[in-house]
């Protein structure tokens, strides 16, 4: 029963989710091993964002099971705070706290949630901002930063909680084209350091480059999946082929 690192870090099994009458997820299953980088792609409205929002219990599911390091997410007695300490999330709209500086955004949760002392939390926050190449922007407010810079602060903020898994929900979709590259580079660095990442993305070139495994979703089911080279060169399902022909 107890989870070991040899088991999947995140194990999604036959998950069903609907918003009222609208069925969004129709039996999705996938496993993510420690250190894996997986990309979920698919047309808008296919349920990919909903799927990763279920992993940290921002959305609940009606049926099925999601295990994060062996902890069942679909459980009324779930300790959401414990789950969310293990799972970091970065959003399309960055969602930085606008009344706090970049540094405060990054160090606030470690101090308040993990009860770290202020000095060491600040030192770690500075190191993280340096890591995402934002040295010198510590005291800037989110409104003074470009979209790409804000998104990198958001990544640093999430990393400050020392999560075991990172979820990225279309994190470059709201960015100006010239700042997409810097954010993707940051994620790539993370992936190379062995961080377990689940990405929802429309950046096919990037998915191909960093992912260990690609999942294609449509209408709430996984239509096809495989390692990037096989997936992009040799898609079997007509829906996948059609989607790829529109995108590439």
């Amino acid at each position, binding site marked *: 029963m107890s989870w070991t690192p040899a088991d999947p870090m995140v194990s999604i099994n036959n998950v069903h989710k609907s918003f009222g009458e609208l069925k969004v997820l129709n039996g999705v299953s996938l496993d993510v091993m420690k250190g894996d980088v997986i990309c979920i792609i698919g047309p808008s409205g296919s349920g990919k964002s909903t799927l990763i929002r279920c992993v940290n219990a921002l959305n609940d599911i009606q049926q099925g099971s999601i295990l994060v390091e062996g902890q069942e997410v679909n459980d009324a007695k779930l300790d*959401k705070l414990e789950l*969310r300490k293990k799972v970091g999330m970065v959003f399309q709209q960055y*969602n930085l706290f606008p009344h706090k500086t970049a540094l405060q955004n990054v160090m606030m*949760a470690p101090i308040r*949630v993990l009860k770290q002392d202020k000095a060491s939390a600040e030192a770690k926050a500075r190191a993280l901002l340096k890591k995402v190449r934002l040295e010198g922007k510590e005291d800037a407010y989110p409104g003074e930063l470009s979209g790409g810079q804000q998104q990198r602060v*958001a990544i640093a903020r*999430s990393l400050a*909680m020392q999560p075991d898994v990172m979820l990225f929900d279309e994190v470059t979709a709201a960015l100006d084209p010239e700042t997409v590259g810097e954010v993707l580079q940051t994620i790539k660095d993370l992936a190379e350091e062995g961080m377990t990442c689940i990405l929802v993305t429309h950046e096919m070139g990037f998915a191909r480059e960093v992912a260990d495994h690609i999942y294609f979703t449509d209408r709430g089911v996984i239509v096809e999946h495989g390692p990037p080279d096989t997936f992009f060169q040799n898609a079997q399902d007509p829906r996948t082929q059609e989607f790829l022909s529109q995108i590439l």
Partner: protein
Amino acid sequence: MNKKTDMPVMLSKPIEAPYTPSALSYWHILPIIAAMMIIPSLAFSAAGDEQLSPLAVLKNWIPLLLEGFVFNLVISVCAMAVGTAAGTALGLGQISPNSLMRSGSWFVTQFFRNAPWLVLLFFAMFLLPFEFSIAGLTIPMPDWFKAIIGLSLPVMANVSEIVRGAIRSLPSGQWEAAESLAYTRRQTLWLVILPQCVKRMLPPWMNLYAILTMATVLASIVGVSEVMTLTGRALSAEGGRPDLLAPFYGFVLLLFFAYCYPIARYTLRLEKKFAVIN
């Protein structure tokens, strides 16, 4: 250089300044009030009586009237403080995850928001005891204290709506970001949501305060010795001379104007400033 274009939208056109109500200055209102006070006085002094002139009478009473006005301000500040504290709690109740709490807070808010202020004041005046006992100690409850409670009820309901509105106006992403960082609901509210709401709440809150200040004169109806009560007493002490009415009530109007108008101007400035930022 724009002259040659055949597209009218390309022609440069002066941008019209948005409509702003022209600001009244003190020198606008002073002559009006002065005229209100002086004209009836002139009429009566033309009658050739040997009474003191109305302005001289007013001058004698000014210290007392000012004292009464300060009492109005004390009532307004206290009612605002009580109403804001209770209203913030009620507003948070309106967004509580507990549905019983939510509907209860909603009902209380709507009930007191849609009640006439004067009725609430009477309600507090005649339903609250004139004294109460705590641990064998009997503490009298004076009229002015009841007036503060009575006036704080509508303030509470309005603050509740201001708080709820400000919280609802924040993008849901702020909640989600805080939740994914494992903040508790309480931490999310106090560290992330409410600090951002203060700025949004300030203009309507100041507006409410100006309205409350003007409503404090309602307390005269239930016998609190505030500026209106004192003005009435001063007038009857002077034998009810009709030529005194305009200068005395004009003076009271002037006091409220001098206090409330700057608040209104400042509120407008804050609103504009925040509109630019957002």
